[in-house]
């Protein structure tokens, strides 16, 4: 049974001058009663165990995948580029008559 509890997340307060174009999040303080803080703490520990276990499982999966050498991967990327280079309009440039965005030469009225 996979459990993922909703965990406390990250606040990002934003304005136009902020790091990215994200919105303000509303913060609502929850446990304002005495005795609730200790409950929150035990919950955090339990969540941490569940999180840690998930992390370990995820790392096990990732450690087990097949990998190839960078040299082989790079040469395959290069081959793909070379094969498709001539079909790439932004790379080789197409004549103005074929590119719908480039302005065609105005007609000269004789």
């Amino acid at each position: 049974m996979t459990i993922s509890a909703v965990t406390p997340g990250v606040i990002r307060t934003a304005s136009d001058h902020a790091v990215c174009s994200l919105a303000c999040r509303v913060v609502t303080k929850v446990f304002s009663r005495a005795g609730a803080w200790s409950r929150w703490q035990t919950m955090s520990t339990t969540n941490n165990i569940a999180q840690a276990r998930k992390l370990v499982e995820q790392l096990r999966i990732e450690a087990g995948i097949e990998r190839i050498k960078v040299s082989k991967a790079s040469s395959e990327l290069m081959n793909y580029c070379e094969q498709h280079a001539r079909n790439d309009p932004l790379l080789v440039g197409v004549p103005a008559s074929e590119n719908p965005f480039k302005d065609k030469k105005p007609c000269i009225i004789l």
Partner: protein
Amino acid sequence: MCDQTFLAVVFGPCDKCFKEKPLRAVYIKSEQLSYCSLCVEMMATEGLRENETLASLKNEAESLKGKLEEERAKLHDVELHQVAERVEALGQFVMKTRRTLKGHGNKVLCMDWCKDKRRIVSSSQDGKVIVWDSFTTNKEHAVTMPCTWVMACAYAPSGCAIACGGLDNKCSVYPLTFDKNENMAAKKKSVAMHTNYLSACSFTNSDMQILTASGDGTCALWDVESGQLLQSFHGHGADVLCLDLAPSETGNTFVSGGCDKKAMVWDMRSGQCIQSFETHDSDINSVRYYPSGDAFASGSDDATCRLYDLRADREVAIYSKESIIFGASSVDFSLSGRLLFAGYNDYTINVWDVLKGSRVSILFGHENRVSTLRVSPDGTAFCSGSWDHTLRIWA
């Protein structure tokens, strides 16, 4: 550094013990239940094996991370730009603004091309979503969303619908109709429901499914007709800012990038994270697959773009310069994958040679930060949207 958000209190009957208590939302096999805190604790400790304490788990996590690094380093025999030395250098590029699309009343946040290589949908902070004809710069459709900051928009593969969303935490699909009498807003269908803002959305290969990414740290796959959640993807530790689907027809993976500096590759069918990469120093604003599907690029607030190869399972190139100090908001590849276009917060667009790692060209024109950038489906041009309220088409 990070503040904790506190959840708003919801009182009610617990789904397990049925007592009236403050509830927490818990996800079991993608189903959301509300348990009281006592039941959550009991559930979490149920499967705890012997000797499995927090400390032992942390140690195992550390050792696995170390082993992962070792395995990756073993295969790091050469750098991409070294292998690329035998490739011809690119000549000078002259790219100019060919069209300027004006009409948005506020910052343009997102745009997408239609598969017909001609139409563009763009969304902005003022809540408007506009469909343009990029050849003529005419506006074909305009919808006003009930929320501001429409941060995500996407064109359906058929060209018959658009999806958009933002601060309303939902992704809505609007069918496009040319009937002047029909009000587009009336036919709106709410598909996705997240618990925080929608940061990115994309149709899969058909009009029937939508993939969304949200500020609540999850991605989700939805069925458009029924609005049902088909699969959810949990794993990011903070807001997910971007996603991109693998290009192949049979592809069923996608990559997502988030504020936790991680880029994660997911299997759409199982909901499992297959690979994750954590080499950026700041939020990842944009991820895009290489045209062959074997690699992807990411643009981040740390002013670098990086190329990650999926089969080598590591970062293979960094595109950065000391003179570039502003974050990259959006990246896209040209058709062959040789060029990487990146829009930055310093109002410029840098064009990088993917293989050699050098900058080929720098494009000026926007008067505020470039927020979104996409190459057209046939590769003849690319469009950039900016906070200066305009979109520019470059070719």
